[in-house]
């Protein structure tokens, strides 16, 4: 049954590293499953619980946040804020008994096209096995 299920994922990618990494995945013609829609932001620190929870509430089966590797942030420390916010958000999801592994934070550099492809495919695979988000049918936009 889960074989049939195609998850609907949202990926917030930082402009400088991860979005460029995604471009590189394309430029090197790596194959990625068509499950994740990319939303470009300038920095992973722009992504807060509001953006992630809204996506989940609107029925996203998973949300990926990707930024520069620690120490490599284009804005020096934005990814550290992203990491703290992510840790807090995970706890909030757990305490609400929502499936916290439907959100993922990854570091992907502009040179890591392969890593981007692997992360997206693995995330899609993981969420496929988990099945549709329980919030999917509750709220339709």
């Amino acid at each position, binding site marked *: 049954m889960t074989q049939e299920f195609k998850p*609907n994922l*949202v990926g917030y990618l930082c*402009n400088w590293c991860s*979005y*460029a990494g*995604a*471009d*590189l*995945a*394309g*430029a090197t*013609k*790596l*194959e*990625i499953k*068509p499950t994740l*829609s*990319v*939303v*470009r*932001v*300038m*920095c992973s*620190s*722009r*992504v*807060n619980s*509001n*953006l992630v929870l*809204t*996506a989940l509430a*609107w*029925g*996203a089966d998973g949300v990926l946040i990707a930024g520069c590797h620690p120490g490599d942030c*284009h*804005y*020096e*420390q*934005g990814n550290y*804020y*992203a990491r703290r*916010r992510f840790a807090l958000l995970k706890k909030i999801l757990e305490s609400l008994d929502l499936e916290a592994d439907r959100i993922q934070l990854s570091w992907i550099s502009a040179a890591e096209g392969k890593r981007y*492809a692997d992360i997206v495919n693995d995330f899609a695979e993981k969420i496929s096995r988990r099945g549709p988000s329980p919030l999917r049918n509750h709220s339709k*936009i």
Partner: protein
Amino acid sequence: MSARIGVYVCECGPNIPDRIDIDRVLEEISPLKDVAVAKRYRLLCSNDGKKYLADEIRSEKLTHLVVAACSPRDHEKTFMKVCLEAGLNPFLFQMVNIREQCAWIFSEKSEATRMAVKYIRAGISRVTLHEPLLQKEIKATPDVLVVGGGIAGVETALSLAGQKRRVYLVERSDALGGTAARLGRLLPHQGTDMRLIQEKIEHAENNENISVFKGCEVEDIRGFLGNFEVSLKRSGGEPPPEMFRVGAVVVATGFALWDAFDPDVTGYGKIDDVVTSLEFEAMSASGKILKKNGSPPRSVALIHCVGRKEKGYCSKVCCLYSLKFAHQLKDSQPAPDVFEFYSDLCLPEKTDQDVFEEAKKRGVRFLRADDIRVEGRNGKIRIAYRDGSAEEAVEVEMAVLAPAMVPAPDSDRLARMLNIPLDETGFFKEAHSMLDPVSAPISGIYIAGCASGPKSIPESVVQAQAASGKILSVLMLGKTLEPEVKVSTIKEELCTGCQTCLNVCFYGAISFDAFRGVSVVNEAICRGCGSCVGSCPSGAISSKQFTYQQLFKEVMEALR
């Protein structure tokens, strides 16, 4: 007037139609609300394509433009320029990436087509929420403050003054030249003799475009690229010199020698004739390399890497200057025995090996040594060390320590004042150690020489020239600066005054208006990362072109 959105799908040669059914895409897009035109074109970034697009904007009377093509990292700027030429505000445009992140990664054409439609719908629904933004222009002062009058500071000042910039050169001590001017002599590839350094100092002192402030320190700096306000204080306590404005700041504060070493291990301060490298340079400069009792040493130990383990980095220049000392000692009559106690030899420059080979020929002994202890014994100096597993010892009459280079004192105070970071070693952190090594992470502040870590004289000079070049290319005479447009804005009625945003802003772009109880963004400093937006608990902050509403539209289309 209702919106008239033009959607143009670029074929990018065969790249996009090979993998995406563009006609199918246009069929789905055309009926959408406010879409006035939806067309395909073979190559929009070509000269013909740009002209076509500009004509379309004008003839179709478009109010918004969506281009579905390659990555915005490739051609967003190209099409923004087209908008500008065609009289459309370039921020009423959205680029949709259907090449790198769609056509090239999805193997099934039907799926790639479905995703392309999704992305284009997202672009259409966000573009109607775009605001026409304006590129602001800021007047900039072309003058420059150089903090530190060592070789890096002097070279920076000279390079900038050569291009008619007023340079304020501030030096804490009462002489220019820093450590380089205090050296006994230079190796061949660092300049034939010390006179060249003295000439540079004299040129700086006498240059009408350079105001030299010796015995002075920076009291305060406020501002941003193009507009810094600087006040100085005189170390002696006399009234400070005038306040002045500069457009850029160069940190050239140099280094100090590590001095926290254990006297029981190094003998320094406990045993006569154990000196540091700079003390040896002073003896060399005076022409008298003598022991405390006034006689020349008959044997000298040169001890490398003092503090390398403790500090955790190599100081880069000590091996070479220890070789210089060895040659210098061998030049005297009678020549003393010279021992180099090293752990690794760092001789990376193209002429360094010759200096090393020549030293070996002249009888300098190279001893690979660990766990070195300097002990006093019967008026002599005993160097005990381990060579592999064997315990060895050598007796000498003088020992010269090569301590690690460490950040100049008060670097942390200057860093706080300039709002720039130090790295884990305590030196000033570069914007990027490899790709942008003379810029600090804050615009308008540059770093040259040993302020960012140990460097040789030629490296410091290169950095000074590089920093000058960067400044000359940013602060051009008679030209204004164009700050970031997609900055953060604060809705004052929603701001609770919690000041969380002040703490997360790396650039210090946000200040607190205590009278009104709200945070305020300085748009000249803001870089548009959106960190404050993410941090604001009341949702009062928004970043232009990346508002919640615009991002939500994209998410909505993704989940449709």
